[in-house]
């Protein structure tokens, strides 16, 4: 170790020697250019660097911000160091340790803004170097992510914070060390109200060691602004014992704000559309009802056309609002005990006149399918499936409806002998305004929102919609919901 400091020499005249020095001091100006080195540099760097060489040439992986951070610590007397891959002037890459030295005049160059001690670690055993290089790589990965990444102990104190934590939360990295992650971030639900302890994803994960991905939440920056976030908690295990958790916090404020604006816009538009529709529908209704005298058959027909299209517009506005509310979770659900077979029987009764008009047959078998769900929403979901099946089947076709359950699930299956859905479009049929053939919208009516609504209702009720289809043979849609817990008292009575 060369602790003794020697007077500075101009960089350009430092001789290249082969003395095998493993340490040198570089002096940088405020623009991070090398303005001086000590006598060992030429040996360590395998060449003489000319004055004004940017430090990136030697330390290509170090961002200048790191020098700034280490400077504050250097001035406080601690001597911070970090490892990095450095490059000799002959191109050889080696593992090095950099230490920012405290400010000192004169050495190795007057007016230097930064003095950096560079230690060559290439004499360490190969396995040790590999390990440290791997750690550097992992640090780079953690530094590159724009999400907050915290490591916390069992008392949710932060023992690791990646650089983005500072940027996202508007804090210095030193604020994080040892701080309570919940207090520091003011972690709360997305609307800002506190998590009840039993629902706090961090506390739960630190208790049961189970991952909780993508929890809607919010955090508060140092300046007081609240960010809408997605929080993922994963347990850290040490020897099989729960030792802490990794918290990954993703800022989704922009997305959430855009979603809210869209909701408000749609809600306003729908409301503004409904007023003129009320007037149109009302006027036509009174004309058709003969309030102002009997209409001629032609006039009556025209009024009917206007009426049925007004109804279609009203349905579209209603469906649009419904799907928006469902997707933003703003449809209140009143779960009650009900059997899907009863709901289906009721819906088939309602659809019978429409089926009869087109000589279609609604048939099926109805086994018990008990669920706990909102009657109104379930009925809408099933009605959409059945009326879709009718819409996409020829006159005189049959539609089969079947209900049933196993120990975990209860379902309604609606099968048709219609045109079928091309395989490459199966995945997108639950999107809004998605009809396989754009002509479908005009020929068959419907808003193109029915399946989207059904899909949203299914997931709001903890279920899903499965679909199978083959072109020319037909399609089968199955609404699957969690089966209601068997009620002992009822089954005995």
């Amino acid at each position, binding site marked *: 170790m060369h602790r003794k400091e020697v007077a500075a020499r101009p960089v350009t005249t430092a001789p290249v020697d082969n003395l095998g020095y493993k340490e040198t001091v570089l002096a940088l100006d405020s623009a991070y250019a090398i303005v001086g080195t000590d006598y060992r540099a030429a040996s360590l760097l395998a060449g003489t660097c000319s004055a004004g060489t940017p430090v990136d040439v030697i330390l290509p992986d170090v961002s200048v911000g790191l020098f700034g951070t280490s400077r504050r610590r250097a001035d406080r007397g601690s001597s911070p160091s970090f490892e990095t891959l450095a490059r000799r002037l002959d191109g050889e890459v080696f593992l090095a340790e950099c230490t920012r030295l405290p400010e000192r005049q004169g050495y190795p160059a007057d007016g230097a803004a930064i003095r950096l001690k560079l230690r060559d670690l290439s004499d360490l055993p190969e396995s040790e170097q590999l390990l440290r290089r791997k750690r550097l790589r992992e640090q780079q990965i953690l530094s590159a992510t724009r999400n907050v990444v915290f490591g916390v102990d069992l008392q949710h104190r932060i023992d690791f914070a990646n650089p983005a934590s500072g940027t996202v939360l508007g804090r210095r990295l030193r604020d994080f060390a040892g701080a309570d992650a919940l207090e520091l971030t003011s972690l709360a639900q997305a609307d800002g109200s506190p998590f009840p302890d039993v629902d706090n994803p961090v506390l739960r994960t630190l208790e049961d060691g189970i991952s909780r991905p993508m929890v809607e939440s919010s955090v508060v920056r140092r300046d007081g602004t609240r960010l809408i976030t997605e929080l993922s908690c994963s347990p850290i295990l040490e020897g099989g014992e729960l030792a802490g958790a990794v918290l990954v916090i993703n800022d989704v404020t922009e997305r959430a704000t855009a979603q809210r604006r869209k909701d408000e816009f749609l809600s306003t538009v729908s409301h503004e559309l409904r007023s003129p529709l009320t007037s149109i*529908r009302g006027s036509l209704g009174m004309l058709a009802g003969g309030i102002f005298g009997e209409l001629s058959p032609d006039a009556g027909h025209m009024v009917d056309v206007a009426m049925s299209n007004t109804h279609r517009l009203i349905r579209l506005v209603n469906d649009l609002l*419904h799907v928006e509310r469902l997707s933003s979770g703003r449809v209140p659900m009143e779960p009650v005990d009900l059997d899907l077979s009863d709901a289906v029987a009721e819906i088939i009764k309602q659809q019978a006149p429409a089926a009869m008009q087109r000589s279609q047959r609604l048939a099926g078998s109805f086994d018990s399918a008990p669920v706990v769900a909102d009657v109104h929403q379930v009925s809408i979901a099933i009605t959409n499936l059945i009326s879709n099946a009718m819409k996409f089947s020829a006159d005189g076709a049959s539609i089969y409806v079947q209900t049933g359950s196993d120990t975990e699930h209860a379902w309604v299956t609606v099968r048709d002998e219609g045109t079928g859905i091309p395989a490459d479009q199966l995945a997108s049929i639950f999107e809004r305004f998605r009809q396989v053939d754009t002509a479908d919208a005009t020929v068959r009516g419907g808003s193109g929102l029915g399946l989207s609504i059904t899909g949203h209702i299914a997931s709001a009720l903890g279920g899903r919609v499965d679909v199978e289809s083959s072109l020319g043979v037909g399609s089968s849609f199955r609404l699957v919901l969690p089966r209601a817990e068997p009620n002992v008292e009822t089954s005995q009575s």
Partner: protein
Amino acid sequence: MSRRVLVVDDDPDIKLLAATALSRVGGFDVRAVGNGKEAIDVASSWQPDAILMDVHMPGLDGPATADRLRAGDRTCAIPVVFITASVGAAEAAALSLLPVSGVLMKPFDPMTLPADFSALLEWT
């Protein structure tokens, strides 16, 4: 003698339609006004048997007007039915908590409006 119904809606077309439906189809004696303040004045002087009132109105809105009607000596006994373009179940539930006789939805069918209105008021 036919029953008196006061229609309150700030949209002049809807006001006309509702009034026409209630008089021509329902056979009621109808008057119509365009805001909450007029509604209170006419209700007080004309003494209708019921009021059909829009919820969203500039100035004095439906619920606020209903509150004033209930507070007035000459108007406190007049039943109110709301009519609204808000479809949300949540809004409907909030309105149903108000001490009104019922809520009707826009768009309405003018041919059935008088019957629906009467049913809410339990008129026979």
